[in-house]
């Protein structure tokens, strides 16, 4: 390709004011000015740079060189601090990975419960340290496997779970007292969590001691992933019901994972991912306070989940800025007193949207770079994607290689030897400042719209993301942004081996549901569902009602239907 055309795309206008301000304020030292005259100018005269402007993958402008002049207003005590201390820029623990490595938590789920149970036990045997459940689309949308809309979808992009009976099989021989489990479920999160708690109870695990994470982040569903059932208001009520229940009964459980991951996958920039996610976090805190919950009690149960995309330093800056913004928000906006309420803990997953169907082995390299950014950014847990995921769910071989990638970073790269190794870098600190400032601008904009639910109602974040996603695609189409093996360095290639899920899963599930409905007490189920419906019409916390319905083996679809009858369903205004 023509080198000159690369990077010619205009920088995002959203940041132009920022660059201008920076230029005005920036006062290079006499020594730096001397370098520009004596060394830089002749060098540029001899050989010009590859592009007129350099930007991150999110179109954030990047300077040639960062020096102390970029950090004139920066105060290392105030802006950097020490690890485990405010503003937590350097990480939330004093010793970070010298003390304990991040949790290697590979997201897995396919077929029926017994298929995924087998994969889980394999991953644990390979040294994985936590579990993470992917559910299939019918489960995510609150339909049983035998529902008409489930046809063709059962067990395809995750495991099919229609009742407590399936959940019992999913965790067979996996001690929930010892293993922490993350569950990627949102709209029906309360129901799936109730099933998990019921299995824990049956295994004799103490609810006060069990830990794990429920995604339970409904706001980003309206914004990005679109797996919603009910309208925002009743959905938020359900989320706050789980907060309240968690604070009382499962004090070690992470009841929500406020997710930027899906926002980024939907095509947002890094700054939009950060800003919308933290503004979602603010929204949950506000709703929790309105319920009468104490921020120092419930906010420590909130966790975050970010994407790790390919722009290495932009991602690291994003994680560092995230901790600082959350600290300031909790302290200044909500008056939190405890350290736990002010520290942002997060999970990271490498960017699925960066994986290419072309030359899939290149994805191993992409994932390794992204994972390294997450580690240098101080993540608490990490999922690394498999090389074959632009084609299908990963094979066992691909999933193992993805786990090995993390193990190599953890045990061979030595980046874990010191805390926040990039702290104090002129570039990383400047980028952290810029990302933080741009995120505050978005947060203020959403505040002005009346909060995140109001912003969703007027499609503000949806529109911002759709625009960013389109601009990125156009830049790729014009080869202003290079994707190796896709728009440059292409080659003829042979298909790779992939995982195939057949339709027998759906048949097995349908048979299991038929048997379940025949064997359970239908009187009991009816009674529990009627009680849930009645409670949904009022204002009581729904968790105890959902829990009782689950234990009576009411199915996921039946429980969600009981609430659909009261809450109605949501249809979005499609933005194209």
């Amino acid at each position, binding site marked *: 390709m023509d080198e000159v055309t690369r990077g010619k795309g205009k920088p995002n206008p959203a940041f132009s004011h920022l660059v201008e301000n920076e230029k005005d304020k920036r006062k290079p030292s006499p020594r730096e000015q001397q370098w520009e005259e004596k060394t830089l100018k002749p060098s540029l005269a001899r050989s010009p740079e590859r592009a007129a402007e350099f930007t991150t993958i999110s179109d954030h402008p990047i300077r040639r060189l960062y020096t102390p002049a970029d950090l004139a207003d920066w105060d290392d005590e105030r802006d950097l601090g020490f690890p485990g201390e405010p503003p937590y820029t350097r990480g939330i623990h004093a010793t970070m990975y010298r003390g304990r490595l991040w949790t290697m938590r590979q997201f897995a789920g396919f077929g029926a419960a017994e298929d995924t149970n087998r994969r889980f036990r394999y991953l644990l045997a390979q040294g994985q340290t936590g579990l993470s459940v992917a559910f299939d689309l019918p489960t995510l949308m609150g339909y049983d496997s035998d529902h008409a*809309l489930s046809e063709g*979808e059962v067990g395809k992009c995750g495991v099919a779970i229609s009742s407590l009976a399936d959940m019992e099989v999913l965790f067979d021989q996996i001690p929930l007292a010892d293993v922490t489990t993350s569950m990627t479920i949102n709209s029906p999160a309360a129901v799936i969590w109730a099933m998990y708690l019921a299995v824990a109870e049956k295994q004799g695990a103490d609810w006060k001691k069990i830990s794990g994470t429920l995604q339970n982040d409904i706001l980003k569903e309206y914004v990005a992933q*679109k797996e919603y059932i009910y309208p925002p208001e009743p959905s938020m009520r359900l989320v706050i019901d789980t907060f309240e229940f968690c604070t009382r009964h499962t004090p070690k459980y992470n009841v929500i994972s406020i997710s930027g991951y899906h926002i980024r996958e939907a095509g947002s920039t890094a700054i939009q991912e950060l800003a919308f996610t933290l503004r979602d976090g603010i929204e949950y805190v506000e709703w929790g306070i309105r319920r009468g919950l104490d921020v120092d009690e419930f906010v420590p149960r909130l966790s975050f989940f970010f994407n790790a995309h390919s722009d290495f330093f932009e991602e690291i800056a994003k994680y560092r800025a995230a901790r600082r913004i959350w600290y300031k928000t909790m302290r200044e906006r909500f008056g939190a007193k405890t350290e736990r309420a002010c520290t942002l803990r997060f999970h990271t997953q490498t960017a699925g949207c960066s994986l290419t169907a*072309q030359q899939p082995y290149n994805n191993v390299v992409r994932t390794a770079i992204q994972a390294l950014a997450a580690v240098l950014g101080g993540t608490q847990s990490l999922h690394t994607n498999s090389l074959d995921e632009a084609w299908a769910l990963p094979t066992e071989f691909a999933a193992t290689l993805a786990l090995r990638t993390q193990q190599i970073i953890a045990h061979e790269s030595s980046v874990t030897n010191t805390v926040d190794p990039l702290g104090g870098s002129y570039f990383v600190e400047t980028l952290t400042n810029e990302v933080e400032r741009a995120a505050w601008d978005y947060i203020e904009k959403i505040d002005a719209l009346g909060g995140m639910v109001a912003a969703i109602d007027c499609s503000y974040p949806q529109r911002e993301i759709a625009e960013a996603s389109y601009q990125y695609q156009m830049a790729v189409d014009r080869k202003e942004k290079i994707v190796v093996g896709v728009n440059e360095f292409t080659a003829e290639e042979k298909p790779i081996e*992939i995982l*195939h899920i057949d339709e027998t899963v759906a048949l097995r599930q349908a048979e299991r549901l038929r048997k379940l409905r025949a064997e359970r007490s239908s009187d009991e189920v009816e009674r529990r569902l009627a009680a849930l419906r009645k409670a949904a019409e009022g204002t009581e916390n729904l968790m105890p009602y959902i829990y009782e319905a689950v234990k009576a083996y009411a199915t996921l679809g039946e429980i969600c239907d009981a609430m659909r009858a009261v809450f109605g369903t949501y249809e979005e205004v499609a*933005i194209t």
Partner: protein
Amino acid sequence: MTEKKIRVLVAKPGLDGHDRGVKIIARALRDAGMEVIYTGLRQTPEMIAAAAEQEDVDVIGLSILSGAHNTLCARLMELLREKGMQDVLVLLGGTIPDVDAPGLKQMGIAEIFLPGTSTQEIVNFVRERAGQKA
């Protein structure tokens, strides 16, 4: 005499909510001068066939990233046959394994576009294959 605009229905069949791709395609086809109707999320094959008939489209573009493509495409193609709409050009995009491609083409899917396809490639394909008929 002005040329008749190519009419395209872009649709998300099944439960899949991943709409990044479908929105980009809708906008790119519209920017290329076509008449684009987007169904929104979670459409059954029945809803898509009915919308295609009612809107009298030349092209249906399906986006499926959930792995349910074999079932959903088979049903849609059957409905189009029943309605006598075999002349509508049906395209599919998404995470579609190589091994499924021959079966899908046999059903009558004209082309499968994988992740990484440029919007221009899709625009060109639609113009070439649906341009004359419109």
